[in-house]
């Protein structure tokens, strides 16, 4: 079934925009192009039995060590575990497309999803083809990471509107060894450094202990009705699309806002639109919270807030492009 997806998705991408030479095929691992390496990565992430220890570094925050395990059982069912090793312990377990969260102070719950949206861009690992619309892939060369031979690939946005990414993939398996999120002045914004990688023939014994029937219930969201918003975003960075849009009440402040999520397959951006006539006056702000950029401005009759891993100038351009259409 994983094969089906890998073959199916590139076709979608090609349908959306003509890609002159770069058709990825999941079998072209021998070739040395960046696309082939990323295809190898996504294939390995989905099909191998592995245990990876990595450390996540963000500016202004303590480093966070994680344990990441993945296995495929005889029935072809994918199992995945992500465990935060410092502190009281947060654990996410995925069996097939049921993702269960176990966290302190919160009753465990499950979501219907085929990826863990963890500290790393899972969507990028699973389907890097999605990035071909907005990013360019450049082979950089080989180096040694976490004691293993690694292949470095640089990923930069075609219209320079987003941060760049440097990834190092294991020469042998194609799994991730290191990932740097790079700002526009080449400063390091976020880093994942793998410290241990084991690929095994059988899934880790941990997965045998999980009883799928004992996992918490799936929380069901009622699909929100398509909203008929009077606002439109005129400028989207290349490759970005609206993946979600609804009216929602913020649990923190109780205010009602229009919510739009933009995604390019690597970064997700939240856009909050609020009519100024019924919200409190606010100052224009721009800043960073760890590796997220936060921008909140008054624009026409709106208060607009944008959060995500994008340069502030891009966030500003998106905010300023919001217009009334009704």
């Amino acid at each position, binding site marked *: 079934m994983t094969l*089906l997806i890998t073959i199916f*998705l590139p076709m979608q991408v090609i349908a959306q925009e003509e890609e002159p030479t770069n058709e990825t095929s999941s079998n072209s691992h021998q070739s040395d192009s960046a696309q082939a390496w990323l295809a190898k990565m996504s294939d390995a992430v989905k099909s191998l039995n592995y245990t990876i220890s990595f450390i996540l570094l963000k500016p*202004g*925050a303590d480093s966070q060590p994680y344990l990441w395990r993945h296995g495929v059982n005889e*029935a072809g069912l994918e199992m995945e575990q992500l465990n935060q090793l410092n502190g009281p312990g947060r654990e996410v377990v995925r069996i097939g*497309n049921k993702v269960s969260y176990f966290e302190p102070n*919160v009753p465990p*719950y499950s*979501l*219907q*999803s*085929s*990826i863990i*949206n963890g500290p790393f861009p899972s969507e990028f690992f699973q389907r890097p083809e999605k990035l071909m619309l907005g990013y360019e892939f450049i082979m950089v060369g080989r180096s040694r990471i976490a004691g293993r031979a690694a292949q470095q690939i640089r990923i930069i946005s075609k219209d320079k509107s987003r941060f760049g990414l440097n990834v190092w993939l294991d020469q042998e398996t194609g799994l991730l060894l290191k990932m740097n999120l790079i700002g*526009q*002045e080449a400063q390091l914004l976020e880093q994942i450094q793998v410290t241990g990688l084991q690929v095994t023939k059988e899934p880790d014994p941990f997965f045998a202990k999980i009883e*799928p*029937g*004992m996992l918490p219930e799936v929380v069901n*969201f*009622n699909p*929100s009705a398509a909203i*008929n918003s*009077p606002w439109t975003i005129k400028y989207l960075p290349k490759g970005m699309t609206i*993946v*979600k849009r609804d*009216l929602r*009440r*913020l*649990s*923190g*402040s109780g*205010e*009602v806002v229009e*919510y739009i999520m933009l*995604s390019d397959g690597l970064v*997700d951006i*939240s856009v*909050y639109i609020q*009519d100024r006539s*019924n*919200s*409190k006056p*606010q*100052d*224009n*702000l*721009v*800043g*960073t*919270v760890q590796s*997220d950029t*936060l921008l909140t*401005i008054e624009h026409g009759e709106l208060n607009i807030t944008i*959060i*995500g891993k994008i*340069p*502030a*100038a891009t966030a500003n351009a998106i905010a300023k492009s919001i217009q009334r259409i*009704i």
Partner: protein
Amino acid sequence: MSQKFENLSALVDGEDSTSTSSSSHVLDAVKNDAELQLKWKSYHLIRDGLRQELPANINFDIADRVAQALESEPAILAPKKTWRDLPLVGTVIPFAKQGGQMAIAASVAVAMIIGVQQFNQTDANQPFNAAPPIPGIQGGLSPVSFDQTRAIPNSDGVEQRRRINAYLTDHKQQLRFKTMQLNNDESTILDLNIKNEEAQSDIVENTPQ
């Protein structure tokens, strides 16, 4: 000339036993004499050296350097250049002024827990998801206490900081819940497999009873 060095040396060595008035006299002299101040420093250094009390790293002029560093340190902690490039610069207030990064991050962690709890317990935001927006009067959904809070002057930014935290919390929550929305389209094949799996595991669950 050498007499005043002598006096100072005696003071540093603790040998100036004559009287407190004479030591205060020497101290006054040190305060007003740059040359003596230099000597004061080096005598102490020599004394520490002789007593083997010197630290592993000696920072000469540390006070001067701290002062210098403070002088040249930018007042704003947020990255300077990027924001300057923005067209909205004039109206923007740097984040640092609004409270530290850490403070916001910490409150996000707390709020995140609350947020998820709320989410689990009720469908609080459900009516808002379903409510059709009415162009122009979307504000009809605002909380009742709205007018009261508005009357309070907002200059200290506490209110806004709270709102930013609410946005950050919501952003984190949205990222976590995003996956399912995305996978609806492609997960049908997976779904079938999983349903079979789950059906089987249910049977296993039920048999002991």
